[in-house]
């Protein structure tokens, strides 16, 4: 019971707009680092993860619209087709919004399983679009789903720790 209360409080932590924007900014920068070869295949989808985090934790602040705009920027930077990332991120954000109540009931390890399913859907959308337009799929692309869902636990811990207010030194 006590644990539940703590968890609820964790979900209700405040988040300033600056903090949300900054987290997306850093995620985009991480995504644009010069990844190569196998590192590129194993690269987690930082933007997707942060997006999913905010969609499950602050569903009224971050939604499908923001996901779509982020996707357009990533499309230009990656020189992919206009709307390819945008579509994948819209689907991801929708999954996060629909499951946000449900995901809150589970602990982090169980949440990763949900995250895995959602990311797999989003990755599949991207791959299907690519397959329709270009006619082939690189299967190692899907390795990113595994690394991304493994990153869910540390990422959530990090963002929660940053959102927690500084402990008042005068308190008891």
């Amino acid at each position: 019971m006590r644990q539940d209360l703590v968890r609820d409080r964790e979900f209700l932590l405040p988040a300033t707009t600056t903090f949300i924007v900054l987290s997306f900014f850093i995620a985009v920068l991480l995504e644009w680092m010069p990844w190569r070869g196998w590192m590129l295949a194993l690269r987690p989808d930082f933007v997707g993860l942060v997006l999913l985090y905010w969609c499950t934790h602050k569903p009224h602040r971050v939604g499908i619209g923001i996901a779509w705009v982020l996707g357009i920027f990533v499309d230009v930077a990656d020189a992919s087709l206009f709307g390819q990332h945008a579509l994948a991120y819209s689907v991801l954000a929708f999954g996060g919004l629909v499951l946000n109540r449900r995901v809150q009931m589970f602990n982090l390890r169980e949440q990763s399983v949900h995250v895995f399913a959602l990311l797999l859907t989003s990755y599949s959308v991207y791959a299907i679009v690519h397959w329709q337009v270009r006619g082939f799929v690189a299967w190692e692309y899907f390795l990113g789903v595994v690394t991304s869902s493994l990153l869910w636990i540390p990422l959530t811990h990090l963002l929660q720790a940053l959102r927690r207010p500084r402990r008042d030194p005068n308190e008891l």
Partner: protein
Amino acid sequence: MEDTRTLRFFNRGPSAVARLVFFSVLSLALLFVDAKYNYLESARQVIAVIIYPLQRLTAIPGEVWNGAGEYITLQRHLVAENEQLHLQHDADAALLNQMQSLQAENAQLRELLDVTRRADYTMQMAQIAYVERDIFKRKLFIDKGENTNVKAGQAVVDNGGVVGQVTRVYPLLSEVTLVTDKDIAVPIQVVRNGIRAVVFGSGNISELELRYQPVNADIEVGDVLVTSGMDGTYPPALPVAQVIKVERDPAYPFARIVCAPLAGVDRHRTLLIVSSVPPLPEPPAAEVEVDDAKRMKKIVKRSKP
């Protein structure tokens, strides 16, 4: 009539499903337009300029790392490297002298034979700004764009050979598609015997495919392929690839020939853009061929009965 709408305490705008449908349709429309037509290039360029500083920012850690490595290089290494470069320079100078005399001879012979001279082309140096982060594509970005007159379609080479082709030009950057990309084909010629063919990218960073060669084609492992210059895009005689595997299975109509690119497709930072390749003479109008074909048909018809 009773109001049957569900009571909503908070106004949150349209539902999530409605939003998803709206943005999905928007994305699909953009996808369709982008895949079929070129209307969105200007929007792409505007966004590219906005995010350009951010992209340079992400490249800084790597550059700092390389810079630090160079700074710490020992003097011993530098001396050794300098000596080696001197030796290399002497050897190259001798070869260069030889080549100059050969070139003069070649020009003279061509004049005697009344063949047009091989035109010179100019090169423009560019640095790799950053490499593609999408696993599906083999592309990289270089730091020369519209500001230095780079045009889409120009070839990009390094000291080893052809790296790729400029496929899209932004105000400050250009996008280079590597020869290993699935969508790229380069017309080539085998150095050993002059066979002309087309080499295709395989999507794998270290492989190219020489397709549509008959099983008995005279191509062996170790053959060097150079550009034939027949397309007017690549200047002639630039090395492209070397054959590393030939499979001749009589069950298939074509031999399976795998080549390795000779350029350091993923090694260097500095590349050269080939500009002002002389345009090919205009091909004869297509209608003439149609007429010829018709005439041939008529002749065939006449000779049939």
